[in-house]
């Protein structure tokens, strides 16, 4: 019966770029790499999280990162997360919690109970780490709680928790007033991580190597932005569907030459496509922005569905570098750790100044407005994943503010007297509701119904638009 009850395998998503199509094997390679490293036993392996700006430290210390969010995402994409989620539930964890974490904890518990990988573990499974680096950031509780919960099943695996806060946008305060002590704190936290890794690996940090790696990821960072900026072209050569693949080198491979080379290739491919006038969609009718939320990894084919209606996604706010480093105006420093800390703060506070200038705006809204302008966006699509508060709370509010402060679209409507009258409409938006990996929260029929109706909404605005 287990067979029949399994979810149907997802249809393969069509990619617009060759680069995106090459991602699958790359992911498989680094997962296989962790299995190999564990078998060889020469390198230490660490559970850790993305967007912490600490991968350079790992790589400089030859520690192999195991990206636990990535593994959960893979289980989701393979539509094989449910059995791990259920295990976590049976431990007493509510399904309303971060499903990435539930999937990871369920997997860990199973692997530790068996003393080997659970049967048919996706891509060989997630190996037991030597230690876990959690990061109690300001925006994600599970990043601190997940490994703490996993430790119950791996009591001998130590946790090191680094704290990486950033100042929240506050109306009554210029963030520059506090950056100094935030920076001092983050530097100390990162140095603490170095000390922990030194102790665990019994090796000293090679700061020259770290400097080189930081430089490599900085260059990659700028290259990514240059590459993604090419998507401003009409028609757009690559959409968010592909970007959900090309996020892999951004989030799991930074500070490697491979990631840099990947974007060199991608940039070339996009330039060629633009030269040929090739778009993600054959006849591009609408340009949409993925304006918030992580995707449902098991339903990436929804992007193809959008494409089939003539809708392209030239830009997304998820998995992007926020802005090129050169625009961030970071203080000069020779110390790579100090630089990482500045870069971290620059990343989170980039939109603050711009937001302060527009009444009623705030950084997330400001970013939406800028992207709408730069990429000539006709509508915003967001995803509210029930299990993740980090990225999915505040979206309704952002749309609310966007409608309030962003320039409205003049359209003709039928007035009370039956005559046409000019009124103003906000940019159309769609919120999809599901989850990152919990497929039980997803209905393809409903989702596609919503997409259909949204496309018709875009069409109607276009038809009634008062030039």
């Amino acid at each position, binding site marked *: 019966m287990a067979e029949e009850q399994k979810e149907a395998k997802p249809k393969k998503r069509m990619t617009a770029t060759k680069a995106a199509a090459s991602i699958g094997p790359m992911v498989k390679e680094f997962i296989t790499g962790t299995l190999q490293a564990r078998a060889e036993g020469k390198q230490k392996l660490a559970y850790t999280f993305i967007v912490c700006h600490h991968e350079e430290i790992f790589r400089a210390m030859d520690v192999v990162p195991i990206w636990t969010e990535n593994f959960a995402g893979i289980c989701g994409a393979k539509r094989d997360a449910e059995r791990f989620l259920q295990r976590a539930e049976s431990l007493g964890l509510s399904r309303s919690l971060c499903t990435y974490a539930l999937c990871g904890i369920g997997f860990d518990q199973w692997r530790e109970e068996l003393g080997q990988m659970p049967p048919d573990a996706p891509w060989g499974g997630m190996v037991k780490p030597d230690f876990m680096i959690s990061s109690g950031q300001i925006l994600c509780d599970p990043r601190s709680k997940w490994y703490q919960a996993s430790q119950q099943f791996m*009591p001998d695996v*130590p946790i090191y928790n680094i704290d990486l806060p950033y100042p*929240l946008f506050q109306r009554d305060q210029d963030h520059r007033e506090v950056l100094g002590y935030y920076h001092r704190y983050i530097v100390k936290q990162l140095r603490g991580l170095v000390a922990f890794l030194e102790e665990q690996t019994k090796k000293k940090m090679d700061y020259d190597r770290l400097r080189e790696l930081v430089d490599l990821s900085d260059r990659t960072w700028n290259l990514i932005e240059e590459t993604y900026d090419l998507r401003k072209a009409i028609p757009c050569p690559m959409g968010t569907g592909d970007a959900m693949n090309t996020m892999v080198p951004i989030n799991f491979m930074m500070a490697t030459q491979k990631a840099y080379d990947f974007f060199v290739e991608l940039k070339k491919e996009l330039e060629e496509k633009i030269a040929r006038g090739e778009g993600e969609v054959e006849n591009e009718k609408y340009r949409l922005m993925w304006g918030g939320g992580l995707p449902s990894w098991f339903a990436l084919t929804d992007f193809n569905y959008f494409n089939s209606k003539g809708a392209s996604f030239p830009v997304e706010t998820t998995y992007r570098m926020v802005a090129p480093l050169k625009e961030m105006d970071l203080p000069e420093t020779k110390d790579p750790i100090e630089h990482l800390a500045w870069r971290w703060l620059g990343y989170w506070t980039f939109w603050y100044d711009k937001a302060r200038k527009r009444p009623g705006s705030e950084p997330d809204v400001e970013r939406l407005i800028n992207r709408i302008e730069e990429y000539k966006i006709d509508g915003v699509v967001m995803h509210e994943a029930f299990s993740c508060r980090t990225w999915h709370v505040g979206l309704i509010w952002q749309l609310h503010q966007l409608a309030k402060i962003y320039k409205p679209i003049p359209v003709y409507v039928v007035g009370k007297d039956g005559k046409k009258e000019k009124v103003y409409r906000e940019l159309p938006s769609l919120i999809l509701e599901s989850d990152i990996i919990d497929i039980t929260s997803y209905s393809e029929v409903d989702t596609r119904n919503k997409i259909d109706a949204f496309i018709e909404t875009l069409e109607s605005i276009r038809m009634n638009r008062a030039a």
Partner: protein
Amino acid sequence: MELTQGKALSTVERLYQDYGFRARELKGQGEKIIGYVCSFVPLELIKASGAIPFRIRGNIFEPITKGDTLLETIVCPYYRSCFDLSVKDKYEFLSGVVIPHGCDSMVRSFSTWSYGLPYSYFHFVNIPTVCEESSFEFFEEELNTFRKSLEKFFGKTITDEELSRVIRIYNENREKVRALYELRKADPPLISGTELTMTLTAGSSLPIEEANDLFDQVVAEVKARGSSPLKKGPRILIDGACLDHIELIKLVEDLGGHVVADAICNGARDHFPKTDVTLPPIKALSQRYLDKVNCPKTYRANKAGTFEGDIANRFGDIGAYAKEFKAEGAILYVYKYCDPFGFEVPARKAYYQSLNLPMLHLEDIYSAGTMGQLRTRIQAFLEMIG
């Protein structure tokens, strides 16, 4: 088994039922009231700035309607209720709101609060996730930023002397809460769990001096009972986040149990730890709020090196309360969508097992509508341990 209600407890009930009426009065007299949520806001700073801190409360009887139009429903239901009441102008007497980094729900909805509500003052206090030297340093800076922000808003300097004086008043308050808890130790307890939580909740709507007076009066009034009129029943500890209403406790007590101890935010977690008066005030506050408020949000390094040692370290205070108040069972009450507490359910379960204390885990959504469903579970649990 009826408890007599004297003057002090009648005042408590009124403050509880018409939550905020005293703050409204004070506002009318020209006082400034600053709202806050969570146990991490250093109230001493607000008080020292001349304003009156007021804990924003939810209401489980009020369906969440308006709040849901601005805030996702995947936010902690308790916090959604607080927001809903705020946008419905229930707390119109506030001059501002302070929100700390208590959990994701607070962080991610901060702009919704600060732009969606009409108050003129908003401040966010960042709380470190770890407890170590660098985080105490950082937190001291963050407290100084908060101090400056209050000074700017109220146009008044907060001196160290004033702060030290206020710290002592708050410490007195914590001693008085301790005195209230002492009344729970008799078997059956002299004060019911409902009365105690109602008293603490009422206190969180008052200026600290008035709360201190009120607690004194309640202690005197309850002590005057001499012996408990209550029937003996299983002694229960309640563990979880913020429980600012009495319905769950009343349910336990209606079914024959007694709530005699807790590890909840507006109970022991918030009210027991005192501030060290021998340290410079900001340093002392930084240590009190970061280290002594034992919230799952804060990570404390596992020094024991074993899981059992770790849970003893993390939850030791709960075990101590259970022992001190002779609890016979625990109810772990966790809101849906609560990541900090939600992820600890298996570990807390293991901890209660190690104490040999039966535990009932309830996941709830902060609504009076679910009390019927909880009733059967609680009754069955009391039958199980009774």
